């Protein structure tokens, strides 16, 4: 079922493709190229003199224990965010997939958080968790928990994980719900007739059929947690206290924009870029193979 439109000549097709190409070049290829270039240079803090230094920025980076710490922190953070947001989203999707009244309303409400800007989401979490003005924060201190994520690094990590995962739940929910609905009813009913109940049925029939969705979301969530959580973290903790929530993206910002070490910051960006490319390639390969075999 392939429908093609054949254009005569090349001018109209070129004109139609041009806007998209222009956007890609201006907002993606150009900055990416600049990042790669400046990752190979060193500049003085005022950006007046730049000097080509080859791969020095990269060798410095991987010799820096602070950077290695940041990698470990990012891996932990990403894994936690992906696990939490996917777990909660799957549970919600399974619940919303049942025959319940007001199902439509639940679904709409569950999708809303995705529409909230990262900084706004962070403010909401601050209003909840702030030790002095937050509802939950005050309550925690009231019952004797020493809650202050501005001082306690572990608590700060917990807060940014919660906030970042929360924002991604909606997205995951939509995909999980669609995935669940694409599982033929008959297969579930056949499993019921075979005597499979509850969680066992979910584990042996539903989850295997949902695996393509799970894997797709795993990659998307890792990418999200690694690269797209800057706004949330910056607004909540700014990477602190100390370096407790300084993930790789936050470090790019701190080193480049705050500490004005453009060369190192660019090198970190390039490393991140390679990370995204690797994850995306993995996803394409895996999904491609799946659709080949069935």
């Amino acid at each position, binding site marked *: 079922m392939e429908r093609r439109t054949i254009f005569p000549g090349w001018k109209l097709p070129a004109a139609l493709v041009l806007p998209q190409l222009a956007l890609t070049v201006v907002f993606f290829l150009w900055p990416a190229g600049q990042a790669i270039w400046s990752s190979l240079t060193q500049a003085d803090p005022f950006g007046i003199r730049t000097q080509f230094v080859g791969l020095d920025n990269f060798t410095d980076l991987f010799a820096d224990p602070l950077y290695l710490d940041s990698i470990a922190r990012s891996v932990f953070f990403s894994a936690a965010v992906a696990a939490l947001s996917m777990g909660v989203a799957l549970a919600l999707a399974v619940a919303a997939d049942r025959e319940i009244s007001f199902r439509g309303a639940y679904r709409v409400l569950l999708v809303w958080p995705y529409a909230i800007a990262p900084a706004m989401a962070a403010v909401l979490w601050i209003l909840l968790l702030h030790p002095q003005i937050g509802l939950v924060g005050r309550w925690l201190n009231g019952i004797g928990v020493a809650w202050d994520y501005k001082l306690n690094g572990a608590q700060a990590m917990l807060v940014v994980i919660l906030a970042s995962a929360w924002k991604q739940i909606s997205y995951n929910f939509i995909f999980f719900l669609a995935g669940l609905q694409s599982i033929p009813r*008959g297969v579930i*009913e056949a499993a019921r007739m075979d*005597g499979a109940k509850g969680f066992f049925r979910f584990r042996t029939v539903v989850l295997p059929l949902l695996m393509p969705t799970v894997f797709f979301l795993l990659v998307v969530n890792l990418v999200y947690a690694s690269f797209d959580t800057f706004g949330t973290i910056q607004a909540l903790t700014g990477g602190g206290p100390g370096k407790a929530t300084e993930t790789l993206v936050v470090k790019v910002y701190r080193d480049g924009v705050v500490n004005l070490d453009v060369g190192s910051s660019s090198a970190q960006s390039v490393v991140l870029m390679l990370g995204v490319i690797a994850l995306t390639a993995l996803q394409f390969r895996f999904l491609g193979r799946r659709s080949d075999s069935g």
Partner: protein
Amino acid sequence: MASLVLDDLRKSFGPVAVLHGIDLAMPSGEMLVIVGASGCGKSTLLRLVAGLEVPTAGRILLDGRDVARLDPAERDIAMVFQNYALYPHMSVFDNMAYGLRIRGLPKDEIRTRVESSAEMLGLMPLLARKPRQLSGGQRQRVAMGRAIVRQPKLFLFDEPLSNLDATLRVQMRAEIRRLQRRMGVTSLYVTHDQVEAMTLGDRLLVLHQGRPVQLATPMEVFERPANTYVAGFIGAPAMNFLPATLSHGGTAAIFSPEQVIPFVDGRRPGADGRKLILGIRPEHVVADPAGMVLQVDLIEPLGSETLLIGRLPDGTLFSIKLANAAAGGESMAVRILPEHLQVFDAQTGLRLDPAG
């Protein structure tokens, strides 16, 4: 093997009543076919017995135990679905073994059971394959295999043959009947295909708009339909219906001027002039130069026989089936064989049997 009793089983979806009280008693080992037009509630009835829907009222007694509110897992019933509903991520072997593993059978017994069922269905070479690598007929067999390995109390078939092509359907129909006889498992079979209904069932239950209309052997349903609905539904091509009135003291019927048909099997109750509907199957009409004239609109040669569709002088649609291929021309004189006449009351549509 188990007996099945349905006791005033009802189902409504919101305000819409789908089944208006079904009563049924099946002895152990019987194959009962539920037949009816789409939307008559036959699939809903099957799903109630399966446990996939909860009845609004009534009881389902399986071997005397009321299972109406139990989970399917606690009923020990196997079902063959219309679209097979195989587990796409499991091999044929695992598809068949799934239910047995849930029951916690030992591994070697599972293997023995699956292999003997696969042997019976000719699935042995396919055990390692995934459903997507199978043809429609093979998937159908796996669905059957998945049901029979469990040796359940009851088989349910939900139009299992409707996705197969005609040749395969005939073949599988015979196979299902053979398997069911051999295993002796009580079975409910839902279909809208009357050939399946006639050939497969020990008895037929004809459903119409959520109500049981007739429960009898296939031949009885064919020869003595309970009302005009059943008469028109069972049999192909469909039975002809002629409006008529009772006359000659209940011993004959008059339809369109001057046509009198005597009742050879006895007089019908009621006063002369009672409105009737006469039913006559197309094959129970013979050519007779002295008979009534049929204006032929359409001739359908079917090979061994010929179907003529036309109109009687009063405009009533009428079809006849002639045994020989040599068919008449534009018009033809025909006579109804009175011994095959079906008589129904025009008001209620119910069958009128000879009085006394």
